[in-house]
């Protein structure tokens, strides 16, 4: 249990998310998702570095891959990837069906 790494945790949750999203919708607006992803990843890079620098969040260094962008572990960007896809797909689905 304690050998469970951040990368393994992300793989589990990303897989669950992608399976669910795939069931929700098969027609996703990929172009818009792509541009949104770019801006959100940039924002995350800045925001994450700030909160780590301020000591707001900490990581067990033995459980992260060690691949950092500034101070941010690369694994943190999984949240952003899932957020953009989930938000965009749910929004598209609901606005299509409630109009």
């Amino acid at each position, binding site marked *: 249990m304690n050998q469970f790494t951040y990368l393994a945790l992300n793989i589990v*949750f990303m897989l669950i998310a992608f399976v669910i999203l795939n069931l929700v919708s098969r027609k996703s607006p990929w172009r818009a998702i792509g541009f949104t992803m770019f801006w959100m990843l940039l924002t995350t890079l800045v925001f994450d570095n700030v909160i780590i620098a301020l000591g707001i969040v900490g990581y067990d260094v033995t459980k992260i891959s060690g691949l950092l962008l500034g101070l941010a572990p690369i694994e943190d960007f999984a949240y952003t990837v899932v957020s953009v896809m989930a938000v965009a797909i749910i*929004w598209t689905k609901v606005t299509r069906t409630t109009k």
Partner: protein
Amino acid sequence: MGLALMDWRHKTAFSINKKAASLAIFVPMVFFIIWDVAGIATGIFFRGDTSHLSGILLAPEFPIEELFFLLLLNYSSLTIFTTVSKVIAKRSAK
């Protein structure tokens, strides 16, 4: 706060469709909370010992600020997404 103002001014999320915005923001939020709890339970990440946080904890190592962060994350995604979609629609209409 800033996002809510932009929402009202530029019609980006709740001001277009309340139901869609709520679902798009809060469903992923619940998912991220479970993800966070799993990360905390496995000892991967933890709350920093800092005066920048209010000290209000909703669960061990889960500060109230985390909820605001997750809200901000999804609300930002939605705001950028609807804005980008509008730009794409405008361009392809030309």
